[in-house]
């Protein structure tokens, strides 16, 4: 199962390697990772997605809380939350395919951010499944380059 953890940390040198080391030291893989500052100076939020069984992830959450530089850990998996990823994708767009690609861009409400004679670069945001679907549909035209962000996530206000 895929888990999404939101980890609030003191933003100081080495904090990323402390968190990452905790995963690698136990033989677990981080599937995606996003780090960015918060409104409070000196504090960052990491959004980490990982695969594992419940007991392993429970252990990871406890170990994360034990790190001295970690302020808060929230497991968003079981909560109602908004999850978003972003991609930049450069797809081959010869004349014959161009219309179909643009239609797909339209359907998924992506943006075209760069165009050349035979390539289109699109920007897309969405949850994990939507991003997978876009990539899946565009692959047949020839994806030249893909840059994908980690997940960013937020708990919904209404949990009931």
């Amino acid at each position: 199962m895929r888990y999404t953890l939101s980890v609030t940390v003191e933003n100081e040198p080495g904090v990323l390697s402390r968190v990452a080391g905790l995963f690698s030291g136990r033989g677990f893989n981080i599937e995606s990772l996003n780090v960015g500052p918060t409104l409070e100076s000196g504090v960052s939020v990491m959004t980490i997605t990982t695969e594992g069984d419940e007991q392993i992830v429970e252990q990871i959450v406890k170990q994360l809380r034990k790190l001295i530089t970690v302020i808060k850990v929230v497991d968003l998996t079981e909560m109602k939350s908004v999850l978003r990823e972003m991609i930049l994708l450069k797809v081959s767009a010869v004349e014959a395919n161009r219309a179909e690609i643009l239609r797909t861009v339209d359907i998924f409400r992506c943006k075209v951010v760069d165009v050349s004679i035979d390539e289109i670069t699109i920007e897309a945001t969405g949850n994990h499944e939507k991003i997978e679907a876009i990539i899946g549909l565009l692959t047949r035209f020839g994806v030249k380059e893909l840059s994908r962000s980690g997940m960013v996530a937020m708990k919904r206000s209404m949990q009931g």
Partner: protein
Amino acid sequence: MELSGAQILLECLKREGVEVVFGFPGGAVIDIYNELPNASFKHVLVRHEQAAIHAADGYARASGKVGCCLVTSGPGATNTVTGIATAYMDSIPVVILTGQVPTPLIGNDAFQEVDIVGITRPCTKHNFLVKDVTKLAHTIRQAFFIARSGRPGPVLVDLPKDVMQTKTEFVWPETVHMRSYNPNYKPHPGQIHKVAQYLRDAERPLIYAGGGVISSHANEALTWLARKLRIPVTATLMGLGCFPGEDPLWLGMLGMHGTYSANMAVNHADLVLAVGARFDDRVTGKVSTFAPNATLVHIDIDPTSIQKNVSVHVPIVSDCRLALEALKEALTPSLEEYDFEEGHAPWLSKIAAWGKEHPLTYKPSDENIKPQHVVELLHELTHGDAIIATEVGQNQMWAAQFYKFNKPNTFLSSGGLGTMGYGFPAAIGAQFACPGKLVIDVAGDGSIQMNSQELATSVAYNLGIKIVILNNGFLGMVRQWQELFYQRNYCETCMDAQPDFVKLAEAYGAKGFRITRPADLRRGLQEALETPGTVIVDVLVEREENVYPMVPAGASLTDMLLV
């Protein structure tokens, strides 16, 4: 008044109550050593940095205070890594001060530069690199606070040379507050209530105690609980001394080399109260068959210890002493209503029968000295009052089995990491913590060679440490496994090329004795123990003696190989 970084460091150590620092100088820490003549504490010069950290660790275990060591950058720092991991696995509070190249050179592959903060990240509770002298005092304060609070552990502080030279106003932070570090000490009252009821109702209760009982000073509360409710007690290697070894309720150690009665008791108990222990694989054997009939209660200050290896029924995240004292309070009124003496009599007599059936024993011999007998005699000759450090392997297990520890902080052994070469430097640290006590290192001929250079330190400070080598010319524990599980293929475990340990002692200015015949053992040990100063006793023991009972790795606790 403005002070240099080095001066601030010494002032901080003084205010933290540091009495002794074990160290070894080098280029990156010359500025600190330059100030040492003005220090409030004693500096002990070791002969290898690994010994500095082990000595600080031994000091911490024997005194219950934070140990401290000081080494230079690069190889000085990397030489402490084994000792740091040793302290980390056993939750021992130590502060390691390492020199570092000047901040402008960090990352340049400068001479004797190493990223020790990066290297020790997975084996310290926390570590710091101090890049700004104005943050030095606060960092040292945090380091000691983190090391001694919560689940204790080693904390490393990396000190660049230029930071030690820079001057600034010294400000001592009166309090430490860290928003991201607030260990929970108090037990949940509801959980205590629940456990108290389990304890009232249990017919076959058992206490399984670990090192947390010793580090939280919970031994008195534990002894009260066991004696008043008539609950038998077993302990891990790290827990030895938390309950009097001569008490009838004491079952001895459990696990791989635990006693028959302790392991059988775990198997038959209907309630196991695990206190400050972590269900290590050497203790549980096959996890799925551990305590199969019992309700498991687990008291530990570290939430990550709970539900890690074994799924327990009642977890209590708390300081062990506070939890046991809360149980004491909850159960005191029950002492009138319940007759625990009678209620637990069948259980205790069953355990006593197991003890009689297969006591901790060995086959005596008139020809060869039995290593177990050496430890038994040490117990007798010291009236059980010595501090015993051990190396790792058979010597460690025999010391744990046959010396009856009555008090906490008297058994110093590398339990989690299993570090050969730990015992002697740890004994040096313990001797500085307890100058009036007799400190003995129970060693093997293999292990002692891993840090024997510290004979120079022991002699230089005129320490009365007695090293008793159980010399079988083998790396005995590995040989035992080879004998039992690898068809006696004694590959590279025979150590018949070894130094003359008597001459080795003499070369360093210590005294050396050799005992070869059982008839001379008692007199020989007595003479060695009565000889002032550092002494090596080289005892030639039965070469292929095994440690029993033994639960093969991964087997159930009841599958014991017996004498």
